[in-house]
């Protein structure tokens, strides 16, 4: 139990602070970046991606990127230092969110299953974010029920031919590479007929189509595979062991969970102070509740980081953080929009706090569905932590191609 830095951590913090101060962007850009969490108008998506890559490249060149990675791959195996660096980055830390899939999820899967030549060629480019990767998992008929993916990979001379469709793939429009979970055997039960691959996104037959969301943003994509060839050398793990590889991908997300915590009750308190709403007793009580919950979430992240750094398996923290944090985004956004101005249905040009809370309002529902919906997380907590019995699941024992997919008759 220690709220303070160790001497090593304090030294790193001082070093990080000095480096960030010397290398961050000019005031105007920083001011706009705060718009991601503060008061300004957001930058267009393409500019943000470019800045995210540039900032990461600066970090990489100075030795501050991928601090959580194992030393063997150029990291420092230090989630605590990564957390400290992010605290010092301030608004710049938001860029890590763009790189979670590349540097955590896809990288972890490559580290576990790629050949040493592949790792040597691909990981440094990932660490510098020269290459953006996407993770092609969800499909129109396989979201929460991820093991039901139907995108088919069939053996051909020297490799595999892929046909099918993926959806909700974050960042695919920016990605040069991607990992792919595909079905190689539809005649065995669902978890056993899957295999993991990776491929270049400019492979012939791959078509990426961004999906416009309610916010007007288009960070998610549909991907169509039309007789796409993947060399067998780009298979990750054994044939039929794709579920195991998918679990490696999904588990790596917990290392990034702090970067995913997207609630800022302090900004809401600022807003209430600025508008004078803070004099209302009901506002004070509601804000206190969120501040307390956010403090709990951040301490939960700290518990998890501590467990990882002590070599212990983390408990139910990750699912708790995602479950509680997701609903909070929706609740806080709706509350803030009401609080700012009951009449204010329209955005004003320029600086307008509504913009930030509108973005949260639009983003909340996506957060509650992505990477394990609330319902899936609750099942995980109930079954794996509390030990409640699973429901009868015929899909686990039937060959995949005999699992019902629609009402009978």
């Amino acid at each position: 139990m220690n709220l303070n830095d160790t001497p090593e951590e304090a030294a790193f913090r001082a070093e990080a602070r000095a480096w960030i101060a010397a290398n961050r962007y000019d005031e105007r850009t920083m001011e706009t970046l705060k718009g991601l969490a503060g008061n300004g108008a957001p930058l267009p998506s393409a500019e943000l991606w470019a800045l995210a890559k540039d900032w990461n490249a600066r970090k990489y060149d100075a030795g501050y990127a991928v601090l959580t990675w194992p030393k063997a791959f150029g990291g420092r195996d230090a989630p605590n230092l990564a957390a400290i660096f992010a605290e010092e980055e301030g608004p710049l830390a938001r860029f890590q969110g763009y790189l979670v899939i590349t540097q955590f999820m896809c990288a972890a899967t490559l580290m576990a299953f790629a050949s040493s030549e592949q790792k040597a060629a691909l990981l440094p480019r990932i660490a510098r974010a020269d290459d953006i990767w996407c993770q092609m998992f969800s499909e129109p008929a396989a979201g929460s029920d991820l093991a039901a993916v139907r995108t088919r990979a069939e053996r051909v001379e020297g490799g595999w031919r892929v046909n099918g469709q993926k959806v909700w793939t974050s960042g695919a429009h920016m990605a040069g590479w991607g990992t792919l979970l595909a079905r190689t055997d539809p005649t065995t039960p669902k978890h056993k007929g899957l295999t993991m691959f990776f491929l270049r996104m400019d492979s012939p037959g791959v078509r990426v189509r961004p999906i416009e969301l309610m916010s007007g943003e288009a960070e998610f994509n549909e991907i169509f595979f039309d007789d796409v060839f993947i060399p067998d050398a780009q298979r990750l793990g054994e044939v039929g062991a794709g579920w195991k590889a998918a679990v490696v991908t999904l588990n790596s997300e917990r290392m990034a969970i702090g970067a995913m915590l997207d609630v800022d009750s302090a900004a809401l308190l600022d807003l209430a102070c600025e508008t004078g709403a803070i004099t209302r007793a009901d506002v004070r009580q509601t804000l206190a509740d969120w501040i307390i919950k956010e403090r709990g979430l951040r301490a939960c992240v700290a518990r998890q980081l501590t467990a990882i750094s002590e070599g212990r398996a983390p408990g139910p923290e990750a699912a708790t953080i995602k479950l509680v944090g997701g609903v909070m985004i929706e609740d806080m956004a709706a509350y803030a929009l009401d609080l700012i101005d009951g009449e204010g249905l329209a955005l004003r040009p320029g600086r307008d706090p509504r913009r930030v809370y509108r973005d949260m309002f639009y983003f909340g529902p996506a957060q509650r569905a992505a990477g394990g919906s609330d319902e899936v997380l609750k099942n995980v907590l109930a079954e794996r932590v509390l030990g409640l019995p699973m429901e009868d699941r015929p899909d686990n024992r039937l060959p995949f191609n005999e699992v019902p997919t629609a009402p009978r008759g």
Partner: protein
Amino acid sequence: MRLSFSSDHQGLREEFEHVFAAEATSARARAGASSPEGWDRALWRQLAELGWLGVTASEAHGGLGQDPLALCLIAEAFGQRLAAIPFLGAALGFADALLTIGDRSLSDALAPGVVAGEVIGALAIPEHFTALDIDDGHASGACPALMDAAATTHILTLAGAGSDAQLILLDVTAAHRERIDSLDRVNLAWAVTFDRAPSRTLARGETASDLWRTLRARYATFMSFVQIGAASAALDMARDHVIQRYAFGRPLGSFQAVKHELADVLAAIEIARSNAWFAAAALNEGGSALAQAGAAARVSATDAHRLAARANVHLHGGLGVTAESDAHLHYRRAQALGLVIGPSSVWRERLIAELVAARAVAPAAPQLPRTGS
């Protein structure tokens, strides 16, 4: 930041649990509370003999000489069981206050008695008193409902405010006490009235108020561990029930509606646990972070405990509302513990007041441009 308890702390907790789990059964708690004395003096003596009433007291005073982190885990283990003993006020609040006040002669005089279970202290918030008149080393007054006060010998409280504030220690050994209809069925509340009880002023003015705020935040932190232990006990009871109870040909706990209710309870407990661990670290370091951390731990733990107790009653169906089931003991306790050192609304207000003051922004007229009109 590191949030984890050492294996030494966990080992000590297991040692305590080993004794306490065997003795502190709900049957015994019920019997103790409905005995003529209204509490379980035998269990109290047993814990005293084993040193568990003086976890943080020095070895010179007969205690175990452990740090407050150890006491946090013991508090959690205590919370997991029902026991008709004044552990909360005496072994947590009062025992810790004696050390924190740091008055050598005071702790020399009282700590050995606390460890032996003969000095049974309580921290009473000013709101607990309907009257309190202090005059020349004596005090008269009344607490219409003080938890666990069957055998309370000392009450520590803050009287007055501002420059008139006094941190006072009342000797209520001779006070009149009357059992009342308690919200908590195990840890009963008593109406305590005292006339010219010996009173000692430990601090005055700002010093007294500051000290009181620290004592209160520390007590809130220990209490949050008790509440988390109690919440886990209610959750475990609900889980055990829904696993063995069948309906519609399958275990109740296999229905998602049931799973999701309990998953929400688990998530609330994990948030509360995280806030409590942070507060424990702040308490152990003794810095200014405790004021906010203690308030956050207190509110979170009350929420989690009440949610767990309510889910437990509900998932037991009709059985949950009977006197026979222990479910109502948890339910009533959860409500009562949330009140003992003031309700959550007060702690939320304390937190927000601190934060607003820290911003040094006086709530001013709206600065944003407004639409309409």
